[in-house]
């Protein structure tokens, strides 16, 4: 057999092999099924029952005010922790302030009643501005008492006490002034887990 016939035979053998493979694939029984999948994200929705916690006029040094509010988990996902950020603006009525009014308003306590957790303890608003306390997290008594975070559909009650500090010194510069306090509560999800 000359070289030309050998090449021709080789090509024909290869072609036959390919035809057998392709033909064989269609020759056997086959079946297929389709899986339609969904990844639906849950919702993280923190609510508060009172958009305005306090609106009080005509206060003087030595006055104290207790208020309550409720944080609600209105989403479908459990909340791991809620962090509180503080900001405020002082309206200096007479333009004579030499001190920050925020140094004279004390948060005597912010108490998470459900978790028996004192979130803030004797801290001025000026100090709080540089802090990010956790209003909700795992408390010291968990798991015996309280929740781990804020489970979906649940609420936590809070009590807060503000005090206009009476420091025994001249505080006349604050007469007629106002302090607009903004508290922002930010909820964070729990760590991811195998599902």
């Amino acid at each position, binding site marked *: 057999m000359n070289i030309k016939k050998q090449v021709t035979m080789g090509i024909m053998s290869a072609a036959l092999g390919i035809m057998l493979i392709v033909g064989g694939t269609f020759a056997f029984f086959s079946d297929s099924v389709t899986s339609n999948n969904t990844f639906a994200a849950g919702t993280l929705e923190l609510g508060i029952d009172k958009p305005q916690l306090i609106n009080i006029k005509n206060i003087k040094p030595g006055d104290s005010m*207790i208020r*309550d509010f409720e944080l609600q988990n209105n989403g479908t996902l459990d909340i791991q922790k809620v962090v509180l950020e503080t900001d405020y603006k002082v309206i200096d009525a007479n333009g004579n302030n030499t001190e920050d009014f925020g140094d004279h308003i004390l948060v005597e*306590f912010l*108490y998470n*009643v459900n978790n*028996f957790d*004192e979130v803030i*303890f004797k801290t001025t608003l000026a100090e709080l501005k540089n802090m990010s306390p956790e209003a909700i997290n795992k408390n010291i*008594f968990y798991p*015996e*008492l309280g929740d781990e975070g804020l489970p979906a559909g649940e609420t936590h*009650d809070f*009590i807060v*006490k503000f005090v206009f500090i009476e420091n025994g010194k001249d505080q006349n510069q604050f007469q007629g002034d106002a302090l607009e306090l903004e508290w922002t509560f930010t909820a964070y999800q729990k760590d991811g887990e195998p599902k």
Partner: protein
Amino acid sequence: MKMSQRLFLLLTVILAMGVLSGFSHVENSSDQMNSVKPMLSSDDRKNDIERLRGMVETAAEHGAITNAATTRSLLVHLTAVEYYVDQGNNDKALEQLRRFDTLVAQHQNIGTIERSMAIFIRKSTVLISNLWSQTDDGVSISELLGEK
């Protein structure tokens, strides 16, 4: 018995008598208990809280509570109960009063309050909360104790 222990025992007895005498605002007549529910005023409730607060402070003064954080924890919770009373939210006040018992029990378990003092405060708390619930909901103490 040491002098301090005697003093502590004496104070405990005095406080117990104070608590029991404080219940005098409840009508004792069995007919009235069955027909007319006694009304507790906000001041009555605040007096009850004040008694509990006094017990905690006395316990702290005599070393029956081992640290300041525990004392503060108990007092802040009572402040929350009192706040709800001030707001006229008696349901929430009662709920948190009952949870005060839970809190004291927890401190008892972890050893931050002496057992005898914890039991005394807890029994007083249960008595007061039963009284409050009887007044609010018409539930008798016997029912609360599961005797009916």
